[in-house]
């Protein structure tokens, strides 16, 4: 990245975000299994990053492209910078696991055993496991030579075996084989007995008994490795289409599957390492050797095992919202006033209840919803199915382009169709990311439309882990806009002019810039002007430019950006009035909230869109104003809390790095503060409503993923 560039590089900014997650894994104040989880997240994040982003850049360099990105770097320069940064990061992952987390976990009773630790009984047990389970599944493939290497699956764990030369081979040539270790095999093999939880890694067991797979042979070396293949072109616009737009048609399938990263254990001999590198055709900078086990993403499974409570965060179960009365129907409550919920502090249950009640309400005529990512056996999907079965018109737009969820989406969408739901499989060329559910209900006063707008997916599992906002309303303008929006995405109508909502890619970006410019203009006229916003990523250069202009005019801008941020904050003459803070903590920050001072009559919004080119130009997204005074106050309070957080918050520096904020006398940990806000409000709400019985219910265990 050049010094004078106006923007930070997108890829390096993302790596900084991953570093912030890794910092959580390194934070001694975080319980050990939570740290392990953060570590696993950084690893699986990197996997995706390599496949898509590095893959995309590799395709560009392969074609000899030298176009500069907004930060002024060529694809080649970006790749070099990425590899340099990731090598550092991998070294830190390795150190963290081996030197901090494993000892800490061992102290907590979770212990990784290696061959040398095993005693008789354990040895026998593993021998049996190998013969009866592992050995029956793993199938070595012989390797004739490096040019005819067997196909190894993307991101699958493999073991490369070097056999001793045949006695009768006068040239003493090395012989190789590859054993895939993926599929149904468990990575962590638990050892029986004792009070502690000891486990052996799958590769360790295979290594111990490998010779049983090669009768009559001697294994000289067994090394675990894993390859990452290029998926830059294979994925939708979520991936690397911004990089590759200019290359459409140039690429063919040949380029997709190339290997772009080779990870292996450091214990590999030079012979083995060189053989693998040649066989898989990777450059030396693309080889990542580690002392730690390969594929740390798998540790997510270990982080989920039953263990001592001290190794995890204390429970913070979602609370019933004081804004929702569990004894009254949702429609009745929304008709009275808009309702705003802040998940996961406030329960997602009212959202499920909203759809459930709609499904069984005889006055409901139609339900329309956009489903982006949802859970298996989602209660919302079940409710929609029942609604259709009971004769309601149910229309669901299923976004099949939701990455990695595709197969799952198709499967339940087909089932919905069979139950009579009108299923629309996305919008051509665009990914529908908006979160909206509309219920059309016949009431004595006429047809009334009830809406739920969200910043997160209709997924009750992630709603316990992601911080998101829900807004319920039956405002007539919002109803008309919602109908218009849903008719447009369903293809029933060309998009109509919207009264309140702004819709991407047809005006949301323009609206955003218009709102920013309005603050700039007010400031220029000597009025107070301020922009507070929270999002996951900020990368759209048009929006960044508008923010720079606002800063230069003197508008105070506070941004809470969890992930990528290409805006350089705090640069004199450019952005000295912009402050960017990122929170990485227990829950995944996911809400998009916007507050514009607007001369004292603040304009407040929630949105499904990040400020990225993909969201503003290639996705169907919504920007929803929050107009109810109570909801506005609550939302401004939520955003203020996030912006005032000092713990778990890092300030973005002008060079793209970040530093932890120094807590003053009263440190604020935003997520804890929000949780406290909800519990307090609930308690005072309960005091004023003693006539409702609320049973104690056991907290359900959070399931993995």
């Amino acid at each position: 990245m050049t010094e004078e560039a106006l923007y930070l590089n997108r890829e390096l900014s993302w790596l900084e975000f991953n570093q912030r997650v890794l910092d959580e894994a390194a934070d001694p104040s975080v319980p050990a299994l939570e740290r392990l989880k953060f570590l696993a997240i950084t690893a699986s994040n990197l996997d995706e990053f390599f496949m898509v982003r590095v893959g995309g850049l590799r395709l560009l360099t392969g074609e000899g492209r030298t176009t500069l990105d907004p930060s002024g770097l060529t694809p080649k320069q970006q790749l070099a910078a990425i590899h340099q940064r990731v090598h550092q990061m991998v070294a830190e992952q390795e150190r963290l696991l081996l030197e901090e987390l494993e000892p800490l976990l061992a102290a907590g009773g979770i212990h990784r055993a290696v061959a040398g630790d095993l005693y008789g009984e354990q040895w026998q047990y593993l021998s049996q496991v190998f013969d009866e389970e592992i050995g029956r599944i793993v199938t070595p493939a012989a390797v004739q030579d490096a040019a005819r290497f067997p196909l190894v699956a993307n991101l699958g764990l493999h073991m490369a075996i070097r056999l001793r030369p045949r006695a009768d081979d006068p040239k003493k040539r090395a012989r190789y084989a590859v054993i895939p270790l993926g599929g149904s095999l468990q990575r962590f093999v638990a050892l029986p007995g004792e009070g502690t939880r000891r486990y052996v890694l799958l590769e360790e067991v295979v290594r111990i008994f490998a010779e049983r797979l090669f009768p009559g042979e001697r294994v000289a070396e067994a090394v675990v490795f894993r390859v990452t293949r290029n998926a830059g072109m294979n994925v939708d616009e979520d991936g690397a289409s911004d990089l590759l737009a200019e290359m459409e048609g140039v690429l063919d399938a040949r380029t997709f599957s190339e290997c772009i990263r080779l990870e292996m254990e450091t214990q590999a001999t030079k012979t083995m390492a060189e053989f693998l590198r040649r066989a898989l055709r990777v450059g030396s900078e693309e080889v990542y050797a580690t002392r730690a086990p390969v594929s740390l993403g798998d540790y997510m499974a270990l982080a989920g095992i039953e263990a001592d409570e001290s190794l995890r965060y204390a429970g913070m179960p979602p609370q019933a919202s004081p804004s929702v009365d569990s004894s009254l129907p949702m429609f009745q409550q929304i008709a009275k006033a808009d309702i705003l919920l802040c998940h996961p502090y406030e329960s997602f249950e009212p959202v499920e209840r909203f759809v459930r009640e709609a499904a069984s309400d005889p006055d409901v005529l139609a339900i329309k919803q956009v489903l982006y990512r949802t859970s298996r056996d989602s209660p919302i999907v079940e409710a929609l199915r029942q609604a259709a079965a009971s004769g309601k018109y149910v229309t669901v737009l299923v976004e099949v382009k939701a990455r990695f969820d595709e197969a799952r989406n198709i499967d339940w969408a087909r089932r919905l169709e069979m139950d009579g739901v009108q299923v629309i499989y996305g919008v051509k060329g665009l990914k529908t990311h908006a979160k909206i559910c509309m219920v059309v209900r016949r009431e004595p006063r006429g047809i009334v439309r009830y809406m739920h707008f969200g910043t997160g997916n209709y997924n009750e599992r992630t709603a316990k882990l992601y911080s998101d906002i829900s807004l319920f309303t039956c405002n007539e303008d919002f109803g008309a806009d919602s109908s218009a929006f849903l008719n447009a995405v369903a293809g029933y109508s060309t998009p109509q002019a919207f009264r309140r909502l702004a819709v991407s890619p047809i005006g949301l970006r323009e609206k955003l810039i218009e709102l920013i410019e309005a603050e700039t203009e007010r400031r220029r006229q000597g009025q107070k002007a301020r922009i507070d916003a929270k999002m996951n990523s900020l990368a759209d250069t048009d929006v960044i430019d508008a923010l720079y202009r606002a800063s230069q005019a003197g508008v105070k801008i506070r941004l809470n950006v969890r992930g990528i941020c290409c805006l350089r904050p705090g640069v004199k003459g450019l952005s000295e009035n912009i402050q960017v803070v990122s929170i990485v903590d227990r829950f995944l920050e996911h809400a998009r909230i916007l507050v514009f001072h607007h001369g004292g009559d603040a304009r407040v919004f929630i949105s499904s869109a990040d400020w990225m080119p993909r969201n503003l130009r290639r996705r169907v997204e919504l920007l929803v104003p929050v107009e109810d005074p109570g909801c506005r106050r609550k939302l401004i309070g939520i955003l203020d809390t996030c912006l005032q957080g000092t713990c778990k918050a890092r300030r973005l520096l002008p060079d793209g790095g970040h530093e932890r904020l120094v807590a003053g006398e009263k440190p604020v940990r935003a997520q804890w503060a929000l949780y406290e806000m909800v519990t307090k409000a609930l308690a005072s709400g309960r005091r004023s409503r003693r006539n409702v019985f609320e049973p104690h219910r056991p907290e359900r265990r959070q399931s993995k993923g």
Partner: protein
Amino acid sequence: MVKEVELHAALAEETGGSPDSPLAVIDIGATSMRMLVAQVDKDGQVHELEALQQSVTLGKDAFTSGTIAHGSVEDCIGGLRDFLRILEEYRLDVDSPHVRVVATSAVREAANRQAFLDRVYIATKLEVDVVDNAEVARFTYLGIRPFLGKRPFSTQEAALLVEIGGGGTEILGLSGPTVLFSQAHSLGSLRVRHGQGDRQPAETDWHSLVRNQTRRIADTVRPELPDARRVRLVAMGGDARFAARQLDPDWLGRENIRLSTRRWRALAEEIAGVSPDELVQHYHLTYPAAETLGPALLAYALLAEQFGLKWIYVTALTMRDGVLAEMTKPTVWEGEFTKQIIRSAILLARRYQVDVSHAEHVAKMARKLFGFLRDEHGLGAKYELILTLAAILHEVGMFISNMSHHKHSYYVIANSDIFGLGSRSIELVAQVGRYHRRAEPKASHDAYSSLRRDERIAVSKLAAILRVADALERTHTQRIARLDLERRSDSLLITALGLTDISYEQMALAEKSSLFERVFGLRVVLARRNNHE
């Protein structure tokens, strides 16, 4: 109010639905098809539930080749099927009176219009009403009526309510709540783009075409205005709404809005200078909408400039609102609206130098007879209006010649514009007017035999009444000012009050009442009674 409630109840009975069921209007235009689904609250306030739009190429086909291409028909049907899905969601049946489908210029002008309508019916069960210019004007008036008397519709200044559509320009001249005139012109935003037949205007040609045509329109409008310097331009339609949103992004599309002609012109020039492809990209428009935008906006601006106007008003109201108004208040054939129509007919009668006092007097007596014979003829308010108009216009043919003037009356009426009246209704007026004397309606009369059976019967009934009324006013002196009516077993007794001699009228009746006797089965007897008798 009472009537509305009755209507709602009647509709509910017919559809088996709730009286509060929403209403839907589909409007098949030249470049787009739109559907409005709305509900009317207890206060008569209309609330929009859904507004849908689909692009069509009907206008492009109809205005260039004269027929709608097969592909365009099927695209249109595909779009209508999408609309039907929405209707189903509101539990609205296509054949219920809650759903109305109208088509305008493109379908009207297509040579294969009947085939189009049949195909649409077969595919969707939707019955499409093809409306003509006068009906468009009527719907426009009905839509705008609640706003008359409020800005920008003042009594001090006349308002020109203008919609420049793909196929033509509709202008309604208003002075406060009074309709001054309605005109239809051939300036269409799509027409100027594509020319007629093989004549494709060059890209730059359409600018001068628009310029010439707006000048001509202004010249036609000016004489109709009480004061051509005191006028306001109110623009209607999708292109005008687009301009309003561009010039005032905060406009929510509810209130009427005032925009500077200068800024409008600048926007029009900017858009006219850009290709439709670029407009699609930049403004997220559909291609057909992008094509018409430049000519339409330029035409509005030039028209405003023709009248030296600093401002252009935009209304969000559409023809669909008028159709909806007619569905919710079918009492439109009475009250203020009929007064507008009658006023328009009187203007027409004056133009043909009709003895208006006589004509109005005949109309008055015809209405009296119509009202008295309601049980006999069973016709509604709309036919009462047709009778009134026929009475007002029955002598327009005298302008051509005294000989067979009833025949001249027929074609003069049939080829005239009467504000608010569709061509079908005008045809009925013309026929009733024609049969006010001489030959009675016969199956051998082409025009008469081309009517539907119920219309033929109505024409006969109305002509019979008109003949009696005309006979009573034989002297052209309005001397029978008051009369009593009495139904006897086999006759209708008409007693003229305050007269001593009624022999003229009795002779006239003897000559003219045979149709009445045949149609109603009643002899007409005219008697007299002095005031002191």
